């Protein structure tokens, strides 16, 4: 095996593992309740503050914070259980 082959094999395996991790995370997010998923994605994908999220979803800043942390805990548990 040439040196370049080893690098290529590692890259392919690394990419495959990364892809698998992404799929697992996507599944974990999909398993959230609609409200949790809404708050979670607004916070992480859009980078919105709790105040902005609360205005968007018609809730309070405290409720948005609770939804976010519950969602994060649920995602971690989903990934641990898989």
């Amino acid at each position, binding site marked *: 095996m040439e040196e370049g082959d080893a690098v290529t094999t590692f890259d392919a395996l690394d990419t495959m593992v990364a892809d698998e*991790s*992404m*799929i697992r*995370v*996507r*599944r974990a*997010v999909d398993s959230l309740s609609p409200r949790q998923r809404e708050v*979670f*994605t607004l*916070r*992480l*994908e859009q*980078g919105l503050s709790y105040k902005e999220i609360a205005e968007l979803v018609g809730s309070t800043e405290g409720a948005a914070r609770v939804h976010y942390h519950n969602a*994060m*805990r649920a*995602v*971690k*548990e989903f*990934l*641990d259980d898989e």
Partner: protein
Amino acid sequence: MNDCNDIEIREALPEFIHGTLLERERERVREHIAECDDCSAELAIIRAVRLTAAEPSVDVARIVASVAPYRRRTSRMRTVYVELAAACLIGAVGISTFVMHDRSTSSGASSAAIQTASIAPGLAIVNTSDLSDDGLAELDRELDKLQALPSADPESVTPAALQDLSDPAAAGIPR
């Protein structure tokens, strides 16, 4: 995967990823992540969520699971195909035989009609077996009338006309 007790750092992780923290806060988060496995894992989740949102995901495992298992065609299927082909062949032979028989029948009728027409033009295709004696007598009278008509003789050919035909241009025949 556990939750870190430093709630301030955890709250700052999304802003850290989005690059909206001040430099001093950013450095503090970076130092904490280097020593905290829980926050490092949570940061990886946040990064993955952002990436999955940016790219359409293709869940190969789910697609493969939803595809029906491949099944080889059994010999029974091949037998059915052979039977269908044989049925089509028999049907084609039957139809062609019927068409040929139908053509021969209609050509016989046509020849009889031609014969009738040559005997009595104008009264073609008359089935005389259905006529009564009076009808036959009427038909006979009609035939007599037709025979009494002057026949159409061909025009007499003059030498001048033959001379014209020998010259194609004069006769209007294209070369």
